[in-house]
């Protein structure tokens, strides 16, 4: 046996030799986390400033101060009424979607799950499609679109919850399967609606699904913003459970975690966040899948850092994608979902292949 083992366990047990090292590695971890957060914050602030200044009306960074002081100018209106709400909505939607992705990947222990896997987006889209097909948004007002989207997603959440996880001893994979099946049913129903309606309605439905951060109703923007922040807080409160769940449900229980309760709460939080985002901003794909994976490669799989950094990363990503969507074919605007899909997929493939390369070299 090796030399280390030859020492009596009693000696090691009582010894103080490890204290110094333990302090060091604890500090190292927390300092690393601090650096990650600072960098991500800086990126977020940078992207917000970029998004404020770039567009049809261009400003420089130095103009901003003057514009804010002159509250009657056209520039001020552009900033406060158009660009700023858009940035806030982007921040909230990007953050929420990637947060929901992290949470769902955590509770299902499946890297391919994303916020839309469980059919929440399908339900929202179905709700909106019904509204458009029956012309409810024309008779009752434009608020019917986000409202019906939210109702649609709520119905799906209830279905998945009651069919999948209400029982005390639920199987997490069954729950996933039920979600996927409900998602298929919702999308088939929507295809049925789309194939029977007029081409004008079809155009509106497709355009809504592609998603946009253009939301004139400030109340809605505020709601999404506060919802996303409270989602982050609640998820962080459960970071201990999420961390333990990385070992599986049974082993998390062995560590004293009430896994049933934690999974239920986290599921509801993640799906409500997704439902709210989809009903306001449409189906903006890829954020919930790609951002969590990218950040996991960088910051590691500890949920205490992963939750916050995914939120910040998702926000930054959506704001930057929105800048591209607004400017690339200006004065027209591309649907943001097009950009998130393309850029996200491409960047992710590059990151993944590089990280594989790196591990091979080491």
């Amino acid at each position, binding site marked *: 046996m090796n030399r280390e083992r030859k020492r009596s366990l009693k000696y090691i047990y009582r010894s103080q030799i490890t204290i110094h090292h333990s302090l060091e590695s604890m500090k190292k971890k927390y300092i690393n986390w601090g650096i990650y957060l600072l960098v991500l914050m800086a990126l977020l602030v940078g992207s917000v400033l970029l998004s404020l200044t770039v567009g049809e009306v261009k400003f420089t960074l130095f103009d901003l101060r003057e514009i804010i002081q002159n509250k009657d100018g056209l520039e001020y209106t552009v900033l406060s009424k158009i660009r700023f709400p858009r940035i806030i909505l982007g921040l909230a939607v990007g953050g929420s979607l990637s947060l929901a992705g992290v949470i769902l990947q955590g509770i299902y222990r499946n890297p391919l799950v994303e916020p839309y896997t469980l059919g929440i987006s399908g339900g929202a889209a179905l709700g909106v499609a019904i509204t458009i097909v029956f012309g409810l948004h024309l008779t009752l007002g434009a608020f019917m679109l986000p409202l019906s989207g939210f109702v649609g997603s709520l119905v799906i959440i209830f279905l998945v919850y009651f069919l999948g996880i209400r029982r005390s001893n639920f199987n997490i994979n069954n729950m996933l399967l039920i979600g996927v099946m409900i998602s298929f049913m919702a999308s088939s129903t929507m295809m049925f609606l789309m194939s029977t309606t007029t081409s004008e309605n079809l155009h509106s439905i497709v355009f809504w699904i592609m998603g946009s951060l253009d939301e004139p109703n400030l109340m809605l923007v505020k709601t999404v913003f506060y919802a996303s922040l409270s989602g982050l807080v609640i998820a962080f409160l459960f970071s201990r459970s999420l961390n333990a769940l990385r070992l599986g449900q049974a082993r998390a229980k062995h560590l004293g975690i009430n896994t049933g309760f934690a999974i239920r709460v986290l599921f509801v939080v993640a799906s409500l966040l997704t439902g709210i985002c989809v009903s306001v901003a449409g189906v903006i794909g890829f954020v919930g899948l790609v951002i969590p994976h990218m950040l996991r490669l960088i910051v590691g799989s500890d949920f*205490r850092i992963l939750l916050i950094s995914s939120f910040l990363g998702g926000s930054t990503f959506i704001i930057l994608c929105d800048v591209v969507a607004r400017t690339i074919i200006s004065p027209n605007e591309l649907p943001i979902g097009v950009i998130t899909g393309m850029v996200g997929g491409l960047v992710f493939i590059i990151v993944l292949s590089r990280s594989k390369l790196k591990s091979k070299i080491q």
Partner: protein
Amino acid sequence: MLDNISFEIEKGSFTGVIGPNGSGKTTLFKGLTGELKIQASEMVLNQTDYFSINLRQKAQRLAIVTQNTEVTDITVEDYVLMGRIPYRSNFQFFESQQDYDIAHKYMNLTNVYRFKDKLMSELSGGEQQLAAIARALTQEPELLLLDEATSHLDIMHQVEILNLIQQLNEELNLTVLMIIHDLNLASEYCDYLVMMNKGGIYTKGKPEDVLNYQNIEQVYKTVVYTRENPMSKKPAIFLVSRKVQDRVKKQV
């Protein structure tokens, strides 16, 4: 379903649970860890009523090492630190220095400190089990449960881990309850054996009393030959193939 299970283990003892597949060993453990509900009349852990404590308090008092450690992208250090989870309140999000000290102490003890920055998935099966034992010790339990923790390992790692457990049991006075399939290892390492069959306890006692060929043939429906191990004076069990059995029968 288990029925009529009643046994006591002394503090600081090393007890083995043996029995064929499906005899209820793992179910017994699931009851102990709180995974399954128990309808027992009485269960006492070190003078505390077992039904009066919640999952987290249970995790502070007993730790379990299972056959396979879930392989994930966690560093060994973070994995071992998870043993401190039961000690952190809901609103304590970060490990204290004390948590780190305890984790490092047991990583040294189990000799996995040298892998502390490696990922769990990069370790071999034996090293993963050592890390799992470090994690379980970091829970600072009164009772350590081992559920076939060595079944899939080669003899070197089996013996290494069991020696470590024995040493922990003797030097730190840790109470160990272990499910083990290998009857020879059970005989060699345990002071006390509980033999289970068909959801109940068949017999219990010292290895010399439990591991005789009558009991083993009755419970495992297998013909064996037992002798005393000349070195340790504990019973040793030999399996006999059917061909040899037939030959012996013919000679008789």
